[in-house]
Every structure is written in C-alpha cells, then in structure tokens.
C-alpha cells in the first residue's frame, strides 16, 4: 500500500511539473456542456453561443459589455428612415477574416458577407440554407426575421440597406443576438468547391477576437488570439474550454487550479466559495423572471380579484429564502429590474393571508381546489420548482385553497402547459434573449402568443395591454417606448395574470488572479477582456 501511495504521489508530481506555467497566457474556462456545433445560426443553446458566436464571430451591432445597450460592431453606424422601414448600415473597413489550413481569405469583410449571412437563413433556395441534414434556423424564425426583412440591398461594398415590412424597434437588438453573426461568403464558396460543406460548422471562420483551433467532442475546445482582430486585442493568448458537466466537479477543478472560471455553481456551494481565499465570486441580477401563470380563461381564475387574492396569499420572500437560498429577489413586475423601462413605482401585492381570505369570500369563492404545475427540471430562473410549489401549497392552504401539485416530463410539460383548456396554474419562467422589454412582454403576455403552442401560458389577452406593447414596438424613440412599457406594467399588475415569483441572481466563481471578466446580463460568457495576473 505504501508503495502504491508513493507511486501515486510520483505520478501526480509529474503531472504537476507538466502543468508548470508556460510562457503563453492560457485561460481555461470550465464550461458546463458541449456546443451543438460552431455555426451560430442553426442552434439555440447558450453553451453553443459561448463557444461559437461570442469568441469566433462578430455581428453588425453588439451589446455593450455588461449591458444590453446596442452599440456598433461590424456596422460603424446606421441611418433609420423616417417611417422606420429602411435601415442603412455603414460597414467597418479593413476587417480581416480568420484563416485555417484549408482557407486563406483573399478579401476583407464586406457587404456580400452581410447579405449572405441573413439570406441563407431566410431563403430556402440559398444553397447554404440546408447544408447539414435537418437544419432549421429557430432563432431567425422565432424573432420573425423572415417576415420582417422585405429585402436586403448592397449599395456598395461597405453599405447595406435593409428594408422592413413594418417598423420594429427591437430589430436592432435582434441583430446583436448570436444567430445574427456574420459569416464569410468567400469561405462558404471555397468549401462548396472543395466538397467539404460540413466544415462550415466544424471549422468556423469568423472576424471575432479568437480564432478556432480544435474541438475534441465532449472534452476540450481550443482557441487562439486573433492577431488581426479589429477591436481591442485580447489579453490572453490561448483560450481553452474544458467541458465539465457536473457543478460540484467544476468547483473542484476551479479550486485545484485546473480552470480559471466556471459558470453555474450550485447555490449550496456559494458559502464555501466565498470563504476560499483563492477564489472570488462575481454576481449580478439575471435578466430573467420566474412566474406562476393562472389560466385566465378558466373560472374562477378568469376573475382578476381571485388571482389577486391568491397572489396576496403567497409568501414570496419565504420562497426566495428557502428555494433560491437568498440568490434572488422578489419579483413584482414581469420584467427584471435591470431592464430599461422597469416600473419601480409599482407596489407589489402585500403578503396578507387574512385580506386574501376575505377577498375570496367577497368574490363568492369557497372550498377552491386547484392544481399547481411544477417543472421537473432546474432552470436558471428556478432552482427547484417542486419545493416552490410545496411552499405555495402551504400558503394557499392557509386561506382555504386546496392545492394538488402535478408535474410532467419536461417536453410534455412545455406542451401541455400551452393547452388553452389547461387546468391549474403553471410554474415557469423566461430568460431574456436580447434585453428588449418586447422580448418579455410580447413573447409571454401578448394576445398573439395565446392559444395552443403559444408562450402566453396565462392565455391572457388584454386589449389595453396589447395596444400598449404594440405601439411601443413601432416607435423608435426610447423615452416614448419606456413610457408605454411602464403603463403596460401597471395594467399587468392590476390584472394579475401571473403571480410574479422571483428574479434569480447569477453567480460566477473564478480564481482570485482573474481580472477583467465582465458579467453579461444575458448570461453570455465572453473572454476578450479577461487577464490572468500573477
């Protein structure tokens, strides 16, 4: 046994020697899942975008670091016509495409690349529309880009004009999303000639801060600094993603110095992380909301006062303490406080079981039995839906409402919860895609999103609310939009189609010597600004 221990120690010592610092600065990120692929357009997972769109590619516009403000990127500026239908982008010049073994670009980025990037997603006749079997562009269609873009026109090499079918204020925010990454038309041609079209997804070429080196499936992704990057040069030379699915193991790796930064720690580990002198913890309110959606078409939940009464019976702070372990805040509006147009003047329904009971009696509701649906999975906005439902069950019992908790397999849950004739209230949530309030209010609460398969689980269609958010979508002036969204939130609070539960806090643990990491409200992990100090 002693010999075995000695041998083990020798082997580990060897491994440690091998791990001695090399001259190039290598930053290791313990990511939580494998990317689906490296072409950002056909995929939907955040882990895919962290591995493809953010390091490798650029977009016409981008979100300013740490915010959801849209700022120039490959487009240096843009003009929007009076009627909001024509947007002319003036493109950055001298942007170099990356290269690899099979491809060396003969030209810089230009208008052809912009048109190619969007045309291939919306135009089924484009040969690159379906270069992989079973390919679809879910984000492009979810953001209604196909309906929205009437035409794209190349004015000259560095000017592109988009014509829209209707004025749409969130359009610019959509263009900052990963699916709108600009890909190289010349690279596509070269691969088509070589008959290796699948390499468009396997060996990506972009204009971003890092270029792709290699991917070993489910294990490691390697990038190197893009020396030709037009923006501020990254401070690290090599970027490595070590794919580590289990949160406890990620933390052990971080503690052992096997990686510099990790996403999604378990709430239970936060105290341990805070007390470790080798680690530090960044946090920020997430751009998300967890809610309980009543079915507002089924009695007695079609009565706003009944919904209000139930909301008043719910002890939300207890849910934050017990389920979120403090890593969240009570939600009073359907959009999170970090989002522009958040109406802080609104007062939340007080937690008052007595008043709630009286209110139900006033409405003639007695012996109410209802279902609460609890999701079977953990999501960034909801650590434990079952436990949340149990707390609600206890709260509602106090006002004489009997709750049965139900759950389904996740796919079934998502489907059945959209059924307009659904019994019971559903726990669910949302994480913002692009920082625009429309991405919450229209997606989750508009009349258009009601019905089977829609994302308005409350089946709530209010004319006043819908009118406000539709107008807010059509005007370009942000101050005016803010006013309209603030009013919409007042209507929402008054009608109470949901009990707004919580906005969760995101935590990012990292080694103490990591500098310059900026948390994204959208939950993206980007590394062009990070540095490692001694």
């Amino acid at each position: 046994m002693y010999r075995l221990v000695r041998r083990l120690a020798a082997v580990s010592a060897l491994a440690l020697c091998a791990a001695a610092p090399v001259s190039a600065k290598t930053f290791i990120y313990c990511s939580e899942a494998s990317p689906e692929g490296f072409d950002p357009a056909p995929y939907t997972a955040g882990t895919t975008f962290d591995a493809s769109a953010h390091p490798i590619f650029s977009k016409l516009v981008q979100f300013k670091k740490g915010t959801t403000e849209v700022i120039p990127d490959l487009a240096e500026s843009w003009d929007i016509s009076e009627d909001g239908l024509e947007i002319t982008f003036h493109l950055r010049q001298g942007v170099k495409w990356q290269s690899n073994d099979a491809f060396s670009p003969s030209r810089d980025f230009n208008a052809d690349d912009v048109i190619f990037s969007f045309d291939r997603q919306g135009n089924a006749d484009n040969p690159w529309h379906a270069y992989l079997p079973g390919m679809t562009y879910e984000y492009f269609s979810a953001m209604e880009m196909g309906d929205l873009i009437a035409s794209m026109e190349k004015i000259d090499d560095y000017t592109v004009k988009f014509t829209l079918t209707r004025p749409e204020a969130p359009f610019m925010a959509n263009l900052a999303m990963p699916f709108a990454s600009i890909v190289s038309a010349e690279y596509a041609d070269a691969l088509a000639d070589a008959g290796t079209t699948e390499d468009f997804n396997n060996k990506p070429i972009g204009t971003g801060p890092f270029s792709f080196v290699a991917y070993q499936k489910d294990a490691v992704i390697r990038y190197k600094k893009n020396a030709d990057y037009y923006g501020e040069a990254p401070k690290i030379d090599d970027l490595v993603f070590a794919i580590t699915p289990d949160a406890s193991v990620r933390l052990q790796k971080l503690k052992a110095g096997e990686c510099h930064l990790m996403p999604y720690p378990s709430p239970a580990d936060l105290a341990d992380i805070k007390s470790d002198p080798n680690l530090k913890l960044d946090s920020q309110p997430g751009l998300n909301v967890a809610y309980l959606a009543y079915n507002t078409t089924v009695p007695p939940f079609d009565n706003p006062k009944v919904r209000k009464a139930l909301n008043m019976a719910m002890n939300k702070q207890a849910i934050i303490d017990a389920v979120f372990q403090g890593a969240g805040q009570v939600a009073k509006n359907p959009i999170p406080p970090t989002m522009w147009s958040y109406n802080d003047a609104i007062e939340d329904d007080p937690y008052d079981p007595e008043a709630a009971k009286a209110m139900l009696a006033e409405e003639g509701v007695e012996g109410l039995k209802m279902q609460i649906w609890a999701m079977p999975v953990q999501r960034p906005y909801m650590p434990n839906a079952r436990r949340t439902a149990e707390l609600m069950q206890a709260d509602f019992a106090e006002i004489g409402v009997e709750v049965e908790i139900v759950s389904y397999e996740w796919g079934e849950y998502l489907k059945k919860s959209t059924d307009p004739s659904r019994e019971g209230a559903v726990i669910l949530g949302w994480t913002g895609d692009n920082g625009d309030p429309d991405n919450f209010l229209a997606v989750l609460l508009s009349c258009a999103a009601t019905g089977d398969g829609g994302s308005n689980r409350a089946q709530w269609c209010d004319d006043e609310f819908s009118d406000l958010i539709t107008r807010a979508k059509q005007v370009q002036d942000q101050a005016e939009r803010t006013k309209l969204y603030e009013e919409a939130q007042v209507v929402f609070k008054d009608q109470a189609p949901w009990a707004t539960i919580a906005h969760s806090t995101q935590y990012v643990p990292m080694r103490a010597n990591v500098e310059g990491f900026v948390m994204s409200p959208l939950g993206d992990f980007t590394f062009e600004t990070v540095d490692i100090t001694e």
Partner: protein
Amino acid sequence: MLRFLLAKLLYLVPTFIGITIVAFGFVRVLPGDPVLLMAGERGISPERHAELSAQLGYDRPFLVQYLDFLGRLFHGDLGTSLVTKKPVLGEFLALFPATVELAVCAILIATLVGVPVGVIAAIKRGSLFDQISMTGALVGFSMPIFWWGLLLIIFFSGTLGWTPVSGRISLLYYFDNVTGFMLIDSLLSGQEGAFASAVSHLILPSVVLATIPLAVIARQTRSAMLEVMGEDYVRTARAKGLTQRRVVSVHALRNAMIPVITTIGLQVGVLMAGAILTETIFSWPGIGKWMIDSISRRDYPVVQSGLLMIAAIVMIVNLIVDLTYGLINPRIRHK
C-alpha cells in the same frame, strides 16, 4: 468448435433483431419529443411542430419509420444526430475509444484485485481477511457511484492534491488523436510528461468504475472456490500429496473460473451502465455521457443507434465469453 461457433452466431440473429425493436421503440415511448425540447419555454405552434416533425420524418407510421431505420442500418447508415447534425457513426467512433480505455482499465482492476481476494477469502474461510473483504465487497456492491466518485475527487484531488479532478489529460498537452486511446496517443506524441498525465487522469475514474464489478467478482470467486474445494477431485488431489499451491491453482481455480468468467463477461453490461455516471462525474468524453445527453434531448437517431451499438458490443463480448468456456472446459464445446 466451428459448429459450436456457428450455432452461437446463428443464435445472435434473432437477438439482434429484437434489440433493434427495443432500441427503436424505447426512445419513442418516452413522453416529449425533440421538437418540443428544442423550442423550450418559447413554445411552438402546432403547425410549426407538424412542419418540423414532417421534415424529420416523424409524422410517418411507426412501422414505416422502423423499416426505414432497418433499411438504412443494413446499408451501414446509423442516421444523423438531430442536435449536432453529424453522422451518428462518426460521433460514436470518436467517443468510443475513451469508454473502452476506461472500461478496460476498470475490468483489469476489478479482475486483478477481485479474483485473488476471492481466492484468499475462500481458502481462509471465516478468517478476519475473509470477513473484512466480504463486508467490503458488500459495501462496494451497494456503492452509489455518483457519491463515491465525488468523494474520491474531493479527498484525493481536493484535499491531498494527488490526482487531477477530471478530464483525460492535462490541457497543456495538445496533440492529434491517432488511435483515440489517450494512453497510446500520449506515448506516440513524444511529449514529455504526457503519458504520466494521461495515467494520472485515468486512476480515479477507473477505480470508481471498477468498484461494483470488483465486489461482484470477489464474491463470485469466493463462492465458486468454496464449492470446488469441496469436490471429490480436490480431495483426491490433496490425498495424492500435492502442495496446497498446486491444488488451489491447478485443480480448484481452473474449475472455479467458469462461473467467474461468466460473471466477468456479464460485468461488461454493468460497466456500460456505470460508465454513464462515471463519465459524467469525471468529464470523460465517452459514449455513456453522450447517450445520457441524447436521451434528455430526445435525439432519436443517436439514442436508437447508440443503444444498438452498445447492445451489439455486449453481445459480442458475451459470445467471446462463451467461446472462452470452450477453451477452459472442453466438455462444453462438445455438448
């Protein structure tokens, strides 16, 4: 021997067809489907759902889909992953060596430790060693793999710092995969320290994966040895005045090995199940983790073809085990 082999092979055909039905049907009887999971909280309209299902061919009758699957299978086409859009066979081959490397190390540990422990426990029946080792085997057999793996990581990697936490090799080594087996590739790469790094990464996951098979093999060896030791021919051998060593190694062990080899063969199935958890804990890029991810995303082509490949491998291993009996015990091949 040839007839024996042919008979065994013939027997595999209906088994294989049965497995295609199970593999194909299994993922489809699970609630939820890939299109729903892809759409997530956003939801998907019934029209778009139907459109995407039709595009993937999932709107056709079950039998038509199954026959299509079988037809492609006989042409060597295992389908394309719905998630990565890559051929399933390519993904399988890229990940399989990692699982084999882990499983081989685990079964070696389990056998090389389990058989001697079982033999000694049987010879010294009732001794302290027997009691401790068999209690240990019972604990090992009941060990929750996930908890056990994490415990070893926290102790050996976290507290003692002896072994790396997870992965197959230190990320500072970078070379092309030639065989997919990290131990071999690290040697081929010629980079100093690469092999040692690969070995150090392999230790904890193999020990974790070996735990249950080790316990089973030790207990099986002990009981088989006890049974054989009571046989007439062992008493005769003793009566002839043979040494204890010769009685045990030649007369007893060889006969006791038949049920033990069966057990080792059956452990391949156990290893595949254990690999799913072990690979997830140790971020080991093998087929266990790949299957789990695919099941949770309802990636039908990967699940059905992956199950089929794993089942085929287990069948082949069991065939080899059957043939091994023939070598050990000639009576079996003549039956």
